[in-house]
């Protein structure tokens, strides 16, 4: 990798090292990543650095991306499934400025996809890397506050307590009510927090051809799921894992197979369900798919009327 360094005063760019982090830090992160890949689902501690945004805003994901990105990469960043939200735009601009990165909104074009809250609807392919921003990497934390104890529980695969949490859900509500960050068992060994993605996306992690990397900046942990690795959502035999489903298709593109957000359209109680993956929705509309509310939404300016 070439080290890109600009000289102060020569142009308007400040003198940051390539991709912001210094090379030693990137090496440290890469070593953590290698270990994480070698032990799927295991949380590797790493020396999380201060980044130019607050912890909890994706510093873990940004550090991983900074450690793996190169000038040939195409970076896609999504936040809540959308490419055009503030955080996604800021992070893309950050890597455009510090790593000369090419950015894209096209899932299939991207080599690195940094994400918060979603896995794109379009199938991932071999060679792509998913980078997840993780607020709480420890799936047992709410059940067991002691770090030493949770480490022992992972070390010896003592996961009965995780199951107790699901039991409590079913006992109280008749079903497992956890809808995001739904715990998974990776490669039949480690129980892992998949980050706050909806459980709708959990099946996409299973045997995915892409490499999946998880970074928790505030909690200083990195973990990974290598390509073609089993990722099973925890459940009971008589209460099997189920993903969310919607009564109606996407109001804009008519998709029946994607994760939908509820959008309030006016102050009269009007609402519609639309794909949370904005790129997926746009692609479908460009292909001629039409949702029942597309005309209304175009008229009211909610979506740009594309030809």
């Amino acid at each position: 990798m070439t080290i890109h360094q600009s000289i102060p005063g020569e142009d308007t760019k400040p003198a940051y090292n390539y991709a912001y982090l210094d090379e030693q830090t990137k090496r440290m992160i890469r070593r953590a990543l290698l270990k994480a890949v070698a032990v799927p689902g295991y949380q590797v501690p790493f020396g999380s650095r201060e980044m130019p945004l607050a912890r909890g805003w994706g510093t873990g994901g940004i550090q991983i991306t900074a450690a793996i990105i190169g000038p040939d990469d195409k970076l896609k960043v999504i936040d809540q499934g959308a490419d055009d939200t503030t955080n996604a735009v800021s992070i893309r601009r950050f890597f455009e400025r510090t790593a000369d990165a090419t950015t894209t909104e096209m899932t299939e074009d991207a080599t690195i996809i940094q994400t918060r809250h979603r896995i794109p609807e379009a199938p991932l392919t071999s060679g792509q890397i998913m980078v997840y921003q993780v607020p709480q990497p420890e799936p047992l934390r709410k059940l067991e506050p002691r770090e030493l104890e949770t480490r022992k529980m992972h070390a010896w695969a003592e996961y009965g307590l995780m199951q107790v949490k699901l039991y409590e859900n079913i006992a109280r509500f008749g079903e497992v009510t956890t809808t995001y960050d739904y715990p998974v068992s990776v490669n039949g060994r480690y129980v892992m927090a998949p980050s706050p993605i909806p459980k709708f996306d959990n099946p996409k992690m299973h045997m995915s051809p892409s490499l999946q990397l998880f970074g928790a900046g505030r909690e200083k942990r990195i973990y990974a799921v290598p390509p073609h690795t089993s990722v099973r959502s925890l459940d009971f035999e008589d209460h099997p894992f189920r993903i969310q489903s919607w009564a109606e298709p996407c109001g804009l593109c008519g998709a029946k197979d994607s994760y939908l957000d509820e959008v309030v359209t006016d102050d009269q109680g009007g609402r519609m369900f639309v794909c949370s993956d904005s790129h997926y929705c746009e692609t479908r509309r460009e292909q001629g798919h039409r949702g029942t509310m597309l005309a209304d939404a175009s008229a009211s300016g909610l979506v740009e009327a594309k030809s």
Partner: protein
Amino acid sequence: MTVHVPPPDATLDPDPLLSVAGISRFYGERIGCADVSFELWPGEVLGIVGESGSGKSTLLRCLAGIDKPDAGEVLFRGSGEPLDIYSVSEQERRRLMRTAWGIVHQNPRDGLRMDVSAGGNVGERLMDRGDRHYGKIRDTALDWLTRVEIAENRIDDRPRQFSGGMQQRLQIARVLVSEPKLVFMDEPTGGLDVSVQARLLDLLRVLVRDLGLAAIIVTHDLAVARLLTDRLMVMKDGHVVEQGLTDQVLDDPHHAYTQLLTSAVLSV
């Protein structure tokens, strides 16, 4: 009427469940417990009595593998080869604790998950060992709640909403659900009113007998020892000063300290 003739070949278990040899634990100069040895057979209930500071709780913590003694050995024959509980890995010891062993703490808060429902508390050990059928786990939990006299409709309530006696009964159900071979109890009726104690004692007596449990019970209450235990060890200043059948030790105490203990109590 006929005289019952015992079957000629009703042999007792050949090997003890627990073999304890020379357990000593020191706190600096002070003796926690010194050179304690005994054997416990399946189905036997051993009481350890003595005043506060006599070393009985220290001994229990060593026996249960919570603390490591400065000297001595504890062999457990659960199934297969005897396990030296101080040299097995922490992983194996933790597994024992969740399966073949159980600990009933004096304070139910130490033994229960207060934020988890009664059913979840009882079901945890089942899920620990890999049970993954919600309906069956719940049925087993219901069965155990009934056995410890907690109404079925309390299964989804949290222990916080229970009285002290109920919490203690729930803790017992949580421990016994995995059908342990050996249970350690530290003053199991300690913090309870006398009337509540009686109910709990009777429940323990019946469960211990029905399940054929081996148990080690630490208590300062000789009435508890009389009702629940087969054998007694009397401790003073970290030493076992007298041991034997419970009724022998209480009715015909030989050691000066035991005579003092038994004479200090109203008819037990």
